[in-house]
């Protein structure tokens, strides 16, 4: 009874103080060894009632309640809070403050924790580090700065950012991206390509795909307070299914309830120039087979001699004249200086209970491609509030993002129209590309462009394009109620909704009858008609997430603390893609779905998934130096078989601050921590893989397809995918261990982490033998076969992060030099595949394919290779290498290791930062190389000065009368007029892929920034509290191995996940950026 009354009383008094003085609390503050500490502030928590300790470390304080929380703090010591009661003497120990002990990080579920208590590796970056070089996307500034994180930007303004933590673990479904979490709520990171990416295709492939970025590229970096990267499963297990690849925890800026209004402005001007381009040869000019041919699209002609000669079509009885010599910087001259600007203004402030933060951000960016073909305009609005009313707090965040973006078609042109990049690569080296900019000029227009085999690149540039407009809202409300002294309940509801409208268009055109390109040229070759196209898509992505968390924090005794929580989660993600396109436009320039005599081809796709989860976590601390955390979670997913849809996973981690336990003050070690963690997450499959279904009767042809209904007859066949009613989740389990060391009073800090992550039960639609009846993907789909849990992938690696203050000046404005170094090595291996599966093909370009093969990496590049006999290449009758019957392993596409180095110098008001990113090892396939070798533009094609040659180290098969085959040394020359056959896979299947596959290592100067902070004196007159101006450059320098004379190895148009590891297929070049950034705070 008494208990119940106490409880009632507790409820009644929950949020109000008693008005009566209760008594005096007295005690003593010492260090861990018992020495008294003087001058320590002691305050009643949340009030102004306080005092400080005397020289003997003692204090006494009158308080209003019987039991209060006291906050102890002092310069150089770690603050501490203790619950005390009147009448009981208080003995508090404060630990000497060590920088490493003060760091607070935001962990899973948005919970802030002292970093030293964590049993896993984290990396945190603040707003200044993220925004130093005014990036458009939040992760761009972090490339090379996080050990174990591979971050790459893949193309022009607003294009996708690739972020892979600790290697690829997931084979199927293109799902190796980390989970992005903003203020505790998952953010959708769907690729924003729009379903109208290519006719009927939802995934990036070689044919004309568009990159409008991924979900994380929408967030305004200026609004971010900090980013914490949780690389391992030990850290992310609480998120359940979605965080199997690690998590990026984003904390946004909030208003401070301090009564002051703060206005901050950040703006930048950004310029971009084209980065690496394929190197072209300068010895041979237009032609084919060694002959000068006016209408050829390659440089297989005679030697350049500089003599003025007519070129191109004869129009109105006249022809242009130019010297027969290579044009310098021919492709480079096509590109222009990209310009961009960012403007961000934020207002923040608040009264004693409520803080607010409002911001408006604008990015306007016109990339290096002339015209607005690559263009991004992004407006972001944010309003956040945070209120505290006694024991209740309420936070809200509303974010609206409007994007208007143009992206060029990349990849392979098709009958509806050409691609800019393909067109550029097939112009002979002696023909000045920039002249073609007058693409309506009579010599360069559709009728008379010099070659019927290609198109004037300025035509697709000006006449074709794609635009996406999107509206995105994301936000959350978060309520916390401290309903009992040690209990807090928190409810959080978040949502992320995107609507996108994508519009692509290609102008129809055809050479006029009788014109040069209609076949009236020296080769009699007509150019195919471009029938034109209009693509419209409407896409919706929406996620809802809510968590209810009850947490309990208590010092159990003098030595033991307990932090515990239990929670429940609801998650739903919905998607709808509607897509229509027409071809054969009737009226040029009218880009509407009605503009064709043919009906539009449409598709409609819906996807819905739900998950329910419950979880619990408890951390027990011992003497503030040993922490053990255990967590469990159970999810129920809609995408698993309904009667077996639960996923359970546990995790445990521990941290030991050895430097607190032992007195290391006589050693150089100022901080020493050991940690170890184990965690599991279970990932559910993509929706709709458990039930048998039909498919449309559409049939794939060699090119194009035959679609149903056919002349009024509807047709549906049995699906070519065998669903799996026993599908299991993918289970990722990871063990990691590490140490964090501070040396010489933390002048040197070192973090070393080793981990092993096993991703088991990979879900994949396993290709099975066609004769089983399930082999052919439907048009627009990429796979067929049996849905199965197929195997195990292990990533094992080590990460090292080293920070050192090389020079640390005592004077506040003196010279300081700091270096930050990261090293990460990850070994990726497919341990096994089930059912005797020999490999899984992840992506293909022509005859190059990316495979996951047991015993090798998940990303192994296979392609045609030479047939070998006794170590010699077997050639055919023409002297050209033959292909071996099986594809050859060219090695893993994954980097062997990566290193980053950042140097920071500060002197007076200046600070200079320079970071390098080095990635070593791995191979890639280049579709750009393929085209410049085919056209004879590439430098490699001048091999042997294009004189006749015999393929080195080769033999030819000789069959005698009775059919016996022997091999004789090959003497068959590849003639000077047939040189081109050596450089093309059709004629040289044996070694042409060796020419197109190369080492993807690189060293990049990621960024260099110089910032000048205005002196306070000047600023205070203008009521400015802080101001700085900086100049920066990104991707300024790039070093690659000699073999790569083609592309920036980071550029790809094959997506930002595992499939993109294959390489690139005639993608847009990556740009170098430089600019100036201004920060002012009032």
């Amino acid at each position: 009874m008494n208990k119940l009354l106490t409880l009632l009383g507790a409820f009644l008094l929950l949020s109000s103080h008693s008005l009566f003085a209760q008594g005096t609390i007295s005690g003593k503050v010492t260090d861990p060894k018992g020495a008294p500490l003087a001058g320590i502030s002691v305050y009643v928590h949340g009030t102004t009632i306080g005092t400080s300790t005397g020289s003997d470390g003692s204090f006494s304080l009158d308080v209003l309640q019987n039991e209060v929380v006291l906050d102890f703090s002092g310069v150089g010591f770690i603050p501490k809070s203790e619950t005390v009661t009147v009448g009981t003497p208080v003995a508090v120990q404060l630990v000497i403050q060590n920088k490493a002990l003060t760091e607070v990080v935001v962990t899973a579920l948005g919970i802030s924790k002292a970093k030293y208590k964590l049993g896993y590796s984290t990396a945190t970056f603040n707003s200044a580090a993220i925004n130093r070089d005014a990036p458009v996307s939040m992760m761009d500034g972090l490339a090379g700065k996080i050990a174990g994180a591979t971050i790459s930007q893949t193309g022009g303004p607003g294009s996708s950012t690739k972020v892979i933590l600790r290697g690829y673990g997931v084979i199927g479904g293109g799902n190796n991206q980390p989970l992005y979490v903003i203020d505790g709520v998952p953010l959708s990171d769907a690729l924003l390509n729009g379903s109208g990416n290519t006719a009927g295709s939802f995934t990036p492939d070689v044919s004309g795909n568009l990159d409008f970025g991924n979900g994380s590229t929408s967030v305004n970096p200026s609004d971010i307070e900090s980013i914490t990267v949780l690389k391992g499963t030990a850290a992310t297990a609480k998120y359940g299914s979605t965080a199997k690849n690690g998590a990026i925890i984003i904390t946004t800026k909030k208003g401070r309830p301090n009564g002051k209004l703060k206005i901050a402005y950040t703006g930048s001007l950004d310029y971009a120039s084209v980065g690496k381009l394929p190197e072209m040869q300068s010895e041979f000019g237009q032609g084919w087979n060694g002959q000068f041919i006016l209408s050829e699209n390659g440089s297989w002609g005679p030697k350049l001699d500089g003599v003025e000669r007519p070129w191109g079509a004869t129009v109105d009885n006249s022809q242009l004249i130019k010297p027969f010599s290579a044009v310098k910087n021919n492709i480079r001259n096509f590109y222009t200086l990209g310009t961009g600007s960012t403007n961000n203004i934020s207002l923040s402030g608040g009264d004693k209970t409520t803080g607010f933060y409002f911001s408006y951000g604008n990015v306007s960016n016109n990339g290096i491609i002339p015209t607005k073909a690559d263009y991004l305009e992004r407006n972001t609005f944010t309003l956040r509030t945070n209120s505290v009313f006694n024991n209740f707090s309420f936070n809200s965040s509303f974010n609206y993002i409007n994007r208007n973006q143009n992206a060029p078609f990349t990849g392979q042109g098709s009958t509806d129209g050409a691609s800019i990049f393909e067109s550029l690569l097939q112009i002979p080296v002696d023909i000045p590309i920039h002249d073609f900019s007058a693409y309506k000029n009579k010599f360069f227009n559709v009728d008379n462009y010099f070659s019927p085999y290609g198109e004037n690149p300025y035509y697709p540039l000006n006449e074709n394009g794609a635009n996406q407009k999107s509206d995105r809202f994301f936000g959350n409300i978060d309520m916390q109620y401290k309903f009992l002294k040690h209990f807090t309940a928190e409810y959080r509801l978040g949502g992320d909704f995107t609507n996108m409208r994508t519009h692509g268009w290609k102008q129809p055109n055809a050479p006029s009858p009788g014109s040069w390109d209609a076949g009236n040229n020296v080769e009699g070759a007509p150019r195919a008609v471009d029938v034109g196209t209009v693509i419209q898509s409407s896409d919706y992505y929406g996620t809802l997430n809510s968590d209810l968390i009850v947490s309990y924090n208590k010092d159990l005794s003098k030595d033991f603390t307990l932090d515990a929580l239990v929670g429940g989660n609801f998650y739903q993600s919905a998607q709808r893609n509607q897509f229509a396109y027409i071809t054969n436009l009737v009226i040029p320039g009218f880009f509407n779905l009605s503009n064709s005599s043919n009906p539009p081809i449409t598709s409609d796709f819906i996807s819905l998934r739900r998950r329910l989860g419950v979880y619990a976590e408890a951390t027990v601390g011992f003497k503030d130096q040993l922490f053990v955390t255990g967590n469990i979670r159970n999810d129920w997913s809609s995408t698993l078989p309904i009667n077996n849809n639960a996923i359970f996973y546990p995790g445990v981690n521990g941290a030991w601050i050895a430097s607190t336990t032992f007195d290391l003050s006589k050693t150089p070690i100022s901080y020493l921590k050991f940690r170890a963690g184990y965690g599991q997450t279970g990932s559910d499959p993509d929706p709709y893989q458990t039930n048998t279904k039909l498919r449309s009767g559409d049939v794939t042809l060699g090119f194009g397809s035959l679609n149903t209904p056919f002349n009024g007859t509807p047709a549906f066949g049995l699906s070519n995918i065998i669903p799996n009613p026993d599908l299991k989740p993918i289970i990722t389990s990871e063990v990691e261990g590490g140490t964090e060391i501070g040396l010489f009073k933390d002048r040197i800090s070192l973090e070393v982490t080793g981990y092993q992550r096993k991703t088991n039960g990979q879900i994949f639609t396993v290709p099975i033998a066609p004769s089983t009846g399930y082999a052919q993907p439907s048009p627009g789909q990429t796979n067929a076969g049996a849905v199965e849990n197929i195997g195990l992938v292990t990533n094992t690696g080590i990460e090292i992060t080293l920070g050192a203050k090389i020079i640390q000046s005592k004077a506040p404005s003196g010279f300081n030099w700091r270096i930050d170094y990261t090293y990460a090595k990850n070994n990726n291996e497919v341990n096994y595949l089930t059912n005797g599966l020999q490999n899984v093909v992840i992506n293909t370009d022509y005859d190059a394919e990316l495979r996951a093969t047991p015993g090798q990496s998940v990303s192994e590049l296979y392609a045609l290779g030479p047939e070998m006999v006794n170590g010699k290449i077997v050639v055919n009758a023409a002297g050209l290498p033959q292909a071996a019957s099986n594809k050859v392993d060219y090695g893993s596409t994954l980097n062997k290791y990566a290193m980053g180095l950042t140097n920071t110098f500060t002197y007076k008001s200046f600070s200079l930062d320079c970071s390098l990113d080095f990635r070593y090892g791995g191979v890639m396939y280049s579709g750009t190389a393929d085209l410049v070798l085919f056209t004879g533009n590439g430098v490699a094609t001048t091999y042997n000065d294009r004189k006749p040659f015999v393929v080195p180290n080769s033999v030819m098969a000789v069959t005698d009368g009775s059919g016996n085959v022997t091999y004789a040394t090959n003497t068959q020359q590849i003639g000077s007029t047939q040189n081109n056959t050596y450089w093309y896979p059709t004629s040289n299947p044996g070694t042409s892929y060796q020419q197109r596959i190369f080492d993807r290592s690189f060293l990049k100067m990621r960024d260099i920034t110089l910032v000048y902070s205005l002196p306070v004196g000047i600023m205070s007159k203008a009521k400015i509290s802080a101001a700085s101006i900086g100049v920066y450059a990104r991707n300024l320098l790039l070093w690659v191995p000699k073999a790569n004379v083609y592309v920036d190895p980071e550029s790809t148009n094959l997506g930002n996940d595992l499939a993109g590891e294959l390489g690139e297929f005639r993608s847009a070049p990556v740009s170098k950026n430089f600019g100036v950034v201004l920060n002012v705070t009032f």
Partner: protein
Amino acid sequence: MKSKIFFLRSVSSLFLLTALVAIATSCKKDLDINTDPNVPGYNDASVALVLPAGELATTAKLGGDLAILGGIWSQYYTQSAVANQYKSYDAFDVKTTDVVDNSSYDILFSDGLKNYQYVIDSSKSQQNWSYYLMATVMKAYTTGILVDLYDKIPYSQALQGTANLNPAFDDGYTIYQSLISSIDTALGKDFTAPTNTPITTPGYVASDLVFGGDISKWKQFANTLKLKFYLRMVNAHPSVASAGIISLFAAADSATFLSVDASVTNFTDVPNKDNPMYEQNIRSLNTPDNLRASVTLASWLAQYGDTRCLKYFGDSTANAINQGDFNGTTPSYATADVFVEKPTDPVIFISAAESAFLQSEADLRYLGAGHAKELYDTGVARAFEAAGQANEIDSFILPGKPYDSLYTAAPLEAIITQKWLSFPIGCHEIEGFFERNRTGFPVSSPVYSTDPSYIPGEFVIGPNSVLSSGLYPKRLVYPYDETSRNTSAPALVPITTAVWWGL
């Protein structure tokens, strides 16, 4: 203190437990949303919906990839010297990994045979015999094409999905026997039974794309197909062929064999709804003029003044390229005539002319009923009609006219050669390749077609052939998709080895 906390913990645990129970019960309903809303479910399938899906698959591959490959290997047309697309075909360089090899095989099994088997099984259980016959004939026809291309293929253990991931390869001849017997079984059913359903989907047009459900025509297709199968056996199993044909004709009347094309028509000049060869070779390929007149066919047409040249190459005499000379620099190559394709061309499975030629050959070889010449004339006439040259028939087959004289000189060679001349109609080119491999006609030339001694119409080997001298392709190599995923797959057989019925 302690006990209070314990109590509070119990209360909150109870609260959470209640919440958990609530979650667990709502779980089932909220989570039972995994039925794909984007496609019909398996239970929505019906014979009327699935049969046309199968027919389209056979149509698409026979009339697409295989027509082009067959057309080049039958030397009707050749790779243009100013383009690239089909160089490997003309170089006889089709490898196990090539798309043409794999995609036809994959689609014929997955979208063709599997759907036919569904219709066979489903109609059998429903005693819906008209669908049973149609699916059986289409499955036999499609399987026959695969046997003719690859010799051994999985048959008895095929189409079982995960129940048999490694189906054994069956002997081609055994498969043929089984196909014939399955046709016989289907023909023996009662097509007047009340369990037969109309060949339409309610509210739609006929679900059968070939004959609109006309069972009498399907019976003719079935018999003509049997005749074709028996004639394929003339080299390997002549006595079986002879006995089969004699028994087939014993019960024959005028309605036994096809007198019209077994074909899919109704293509429209619209993307994805047009003739598959046109769609893939013209509409969807950026170079529409890869296929140029071959000297092999063009020289024959010129020699005899055959007016079908107009139909095939749009010209009364064709400017042609020597077969396989795609690297040649002869100036006239650039303007060589392009093979004429139309978006509305039919895709023919067995043509009316072919039916007559098959009957003619049967009579000539085994029946001796004296109708061989008459049937030959009918075949030639039907072939000319199909080419829009009906008016020209008499000037070729009347006594003393060229094709009459050729028959007189060598009847079998004349029949097969005329058949060869008819196959470019309706994307049926692959049959020209098969029939030459079976009969050796048209004969191989000892010299290349540039040689003055070259005899028009004789087959030549192009300068870019990757095969040992004198060799022609006689099959396709087992596709990589199959050999890499089926542990029962036999070793690769060279492209120059004849299939079981071949010479």
